[in-house]
């Protein structure tokens, strides 16, 4: 692709907010809390499952400075979902702001609002709760036969039929088929049947959940919140409180990361209910422990893969059978499970006979939610690991087995909702990745082929992955672009920049069409009272969905500017020339500055355009990921030596930001593969609830992650772009596990591959001891 085709996109443009966020300007939620805001703290259940018989609040109420103490009898009883998703949707209304049941260790039971944090803390200690302790459901693999029922309430609402059976703790069951899996599998000379487990990983964005609320000048309940779903939050808050949406306003300032966590509400309603009931500003900020233990995590999965193949490595039949732990509440769970199959099976494009079965169960554990990759990550680990196993079994190079199976442009992908693939450079991604990691030198099929020191062996592995770009025919957004007095443009968006840089890349797109510098576009967002509607930032959607709306609006605005210039200059539109600074033709000239001035002073219509976009398709971006490890057979320790990712996200809109998105995604993927262990106590408490216990990769744990792009051109995307945010997290787990297998011959099918687990597997392989 030629370097000079674009002036504003396809370049490394610094973020529009770079210097304010780096310089420590007070631009995040917690920096702007009104001085008189009440501090809101929550009392949380020590039991995994209990019914709240009575909350004794009297002593707490007496603490000086306490304004209110609330339990489930004091708050509106409407059920809702914390999940931010377009509606009507399929997330169950299974929550109350405070509930009669505590469904996991940490579920809130009572709330205190006080003038100071000290007063609130003191009051919390004085609340006494009478519980009826119930038998918790802790093991998701047996939840559907457990006699306990996690959701016994009679006002639970399924928005639509998702195959739920609450008596058996089943939130959703799902099945879809392409062709005839059973017949095709039976006919295959090679059959694999493997089971995998993935963990409930923490998104671990550095800014914890926080919201403050107040009544604005119009008496509207106004929330300033660290959220990815500004507009959905407005709807959900109105539903939970039982007040009209017109009475709720949500503002998103700068956000310190989300990675999907903030696609569900966290603190919003606890601040909001206090302001709603007392009229006072209120601030609720979760500690790191609360964020880890009491908001949401990645959903834990057990995935069984049955793969039938020809002797040459062509996969003919594929069945993904997923069991997902929703945890105590069902945010996003019924959608997450679908991606474990629909974004993995299509990568075995010749498997026309496929099946997907899935079951989502409730348990009395920390709720799952959205985390970058959203089910595709879990599925990728299982399916790609099975494909790697197939390669080992057939003595085939795993890169060559991919080339036999990957999808082709122009063909429909039956397991991907029948969508026709319009852009894909995965073959080039694989070729480039092989070169970068020196695959042909480093890959030796037999384990223990590459000793690198006393009891140390090296190995390489790889995997491929795809995601989507927004949600087909569901997610919608609008943007408004206008020419302002002073000759600059204002771009109003509802998409939530949570660090992802969408403010910047959308400005780049507008600038590309308006032929100006990116700095000439002022981006404003998000305040539901003046931003155009946007579904929010999730599902890898901003570049593609909001990007398409932005280019549409920019083209429309440019057309209007042409018309206005033609009329002012009395020159036919076709004879006008626009260079980004001015319109000229027949010797006359009108600058953008003059046009902006006239637009506000003279014209009968303001030069502005609003465009909407909803996509009939969700073009997949692709990644080929490679890893090299060194395994110490005496300790089981896995050292990650190299991580290479080659990405097809269509046209790269911002070369610096896309690069860092990819590096960051690979880093999180490596954490999931090797370090991020999740532990539940016997009582069902998530004990890996701080950065002390939950090991995020530090800069000492990661090799220099090496990223390259193999651009394709997506005809439906803005300037040929697809998404990048999520796909980059998927490949490290299967690639690293394959590298471990390649080094020392053991296969890890339950993440993460800790030294202990690898050591045990090595021992088992030696036959010294049978260890499960």
């Amino acid at each position, binding site marked *: 692709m030629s370097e000079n085709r674009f002036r504003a996109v396809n370049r490394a443009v610094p973020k529009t907010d770079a210097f304010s966020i780096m310089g420590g300007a007070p631009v995040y939620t*917690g920096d702007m809390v009104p001085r008189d805001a009440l501090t809101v703290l929550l009392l949380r259940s020590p039991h995994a499952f209990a019914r709240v018989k009575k909350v004794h609040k009297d002593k707490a109420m007496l603490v000086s400075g306490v304004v209110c103490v609330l339990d489930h009898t004091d708050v509106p009883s409407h059920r809702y979902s914390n999940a931010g998703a377009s509606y009507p949707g399929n997330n169950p209304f299974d929550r109350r702001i405070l509930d009669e049941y505590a469904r996991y260790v940490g579920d809130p039971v009572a709330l205190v609002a006080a003038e100071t944090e000290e007063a609130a803390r003191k009051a919390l200690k004085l609340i006494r709760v009478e519980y009826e302790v119930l038998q918790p459901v802790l093991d998701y693999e047996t939840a559907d036969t457990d006699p306990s029922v996690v959701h016994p309430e009679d006002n639970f609402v399924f928005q639509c039929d998702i195959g739920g059976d609450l008596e058996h703790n089943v939130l959703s069951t799902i099945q879809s088929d392409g062709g005839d899996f059973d017949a095709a599998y039976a006919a295959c000379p090679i059959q694999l049947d493997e089971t995998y487990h993935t963990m409930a990983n923490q998104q671990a964005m550095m800014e914890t959940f926080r919201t403050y609320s107040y009544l604005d000048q119009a008496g509207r309940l106004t929330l300033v919140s660290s959220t990815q779903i500004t507009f959905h939050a407005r709807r959900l808050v109105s539903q939970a409180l039982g007040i009209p949406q017109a009475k709720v306003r949500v503002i998103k300032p700068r956000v310190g990361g989300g990675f999907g966590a903030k696609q569900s509400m966290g603190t919003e309603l606890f601040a909001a209910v206090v302001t709603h009931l007392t009229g006072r500003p209120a601030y609720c900020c979760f500690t790191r422990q609360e964020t880890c233990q009491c908001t949401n995590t990645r959903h834990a999965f057990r995935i069984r893969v049955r793969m039938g193949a020809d002797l040459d490595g062509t996969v003919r039949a594929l069945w993904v059978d997923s069991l997902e732990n929703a945890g105590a509440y069902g945010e996003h769970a019924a959608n997450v499970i679908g991606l474990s199959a629909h974004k993995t099976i299509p990568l075995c494009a010749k498997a026309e006979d496929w099946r997907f079965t899935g079951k989502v169960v409730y348990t009395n554990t920390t709720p799952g939610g959205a985390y970058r990759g959203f089910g595709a990550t879990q599925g990728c680990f299982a399916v790609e690991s099975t494909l790697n196993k197939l390669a080992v079994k057939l003595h085939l190079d795993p890169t060559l087995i991919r080339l036999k199976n990957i999808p082709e442009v122009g063909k429909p992908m039956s397991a991907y909702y029948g969508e026709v693939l319009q852009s894909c450079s995965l073959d080039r991604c694989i070729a480039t990745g092989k070169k970068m990691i020196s695959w042909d030198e480093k890959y030796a099929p037999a384990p223990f082929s590459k000793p690198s020191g006393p009891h140390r062996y090296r190995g390489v592995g790889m995997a491929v992955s795809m995601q989507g770009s927004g949600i087909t025919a569901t997610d919608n957004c609008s943007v408004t672009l206008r020419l302002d007095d002073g000759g600059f443009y204002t771009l109003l968006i509802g998409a939530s920049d949570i*660090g992802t840089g969408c403010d910047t890349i959308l400005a780049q797109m507008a600038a590309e069409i308006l032929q100006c510098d990116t700095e000439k576009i002022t981006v404003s967002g998000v305040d539901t009272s003046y931003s155009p509607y946007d579904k929010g930032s999730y599902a890898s959607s901003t570049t593609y969905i909001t990007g398409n709306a932005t280019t549409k609006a920019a083209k429309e605005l440019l057309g209007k500017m042409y018309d206005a210039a033609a009329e002012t200059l009395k020159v036919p539109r076709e004879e006008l020339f626009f260079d980004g600074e001015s319109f000229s033709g027949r010797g006359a000239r009108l600058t953008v500055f003059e046009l902006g001035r006239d637009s506000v002073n003279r014209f009968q219509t303001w030069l502005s355009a609003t465009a909407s976009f909803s996509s009939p398709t969700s073009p997949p971006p692709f990644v080929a990921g490679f890893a090299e490890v060194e395994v110490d057979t005496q300790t089981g320790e896995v050292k990650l030596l190299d991580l290479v990712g080659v990405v097809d996200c269509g046209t790269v809109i911002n070369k610096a930001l896309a690069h860092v998105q990819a590096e960051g995604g690979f880093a999180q993927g490596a954490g999931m593969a090797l370090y991020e262990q999740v532990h539940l106590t016997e009582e069902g408490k998530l004990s890996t609830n701080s950065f002390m216990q939950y090991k995020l990769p530090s*800069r000492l744990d990661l090799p220099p992650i090496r990223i390259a792009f193999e651009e394709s051109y997506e005809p439906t995307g803005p300037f040929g772009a697809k998404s990048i945010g999520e796909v980059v997290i998927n490949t490290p787990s299967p690639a690293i596990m394959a590298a471990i297998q390649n080094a020392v011959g053991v296969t890890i099918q339950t993440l993460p591959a800790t030294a202990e687990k690898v050591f045990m597997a090595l021992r088992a392989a030696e036959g010294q001891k049978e260890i499960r």
Partner: protein
Amino acid sequence: MTLTFTLNGRKMSQEISPDESLLSVLRRCGCYSVRSGCDTSNCGICTVWVDGHAILSCSYPAPRAEGRSVTTMEGVRDEAQDLMTFLAEEGADQCGFCSPGFIMSVLAMLRELKDPTVDEMEQYLSGNLCRCTGYNSQHRAIVKLLEKRRDEHHV
């Protein structure tokens, strides 16, 4: 109790409670760049300097700052300008929440180690977590900064 200390070059007196962390006092003094990420001294986001040394303000008892000189991002914006420019060029400021603490650590490192190797750099900065970037872009920015400084010395 009253804490008397120097904050970003200015003498200050501030009422504090004896068990308060320096982080909480600094935010009360309007230094909003100082933020918390973890509550367990693991993330480095709250990094500031006391008498020129990088410390974690979340676990530093405020009374210990009595008579000392405290520096936050607000006090080193000029010194940080080049580093911020290189970080911005690399896109190393994704959500930016870790940036002020990280920058304080980098500037402290550059005062201590004139020309750190990559290994020294990683060791020194290992307490500064970043969930967004995977760290590489931060390292590229530091290397660029070191190169620029070297060039300036040679001119």
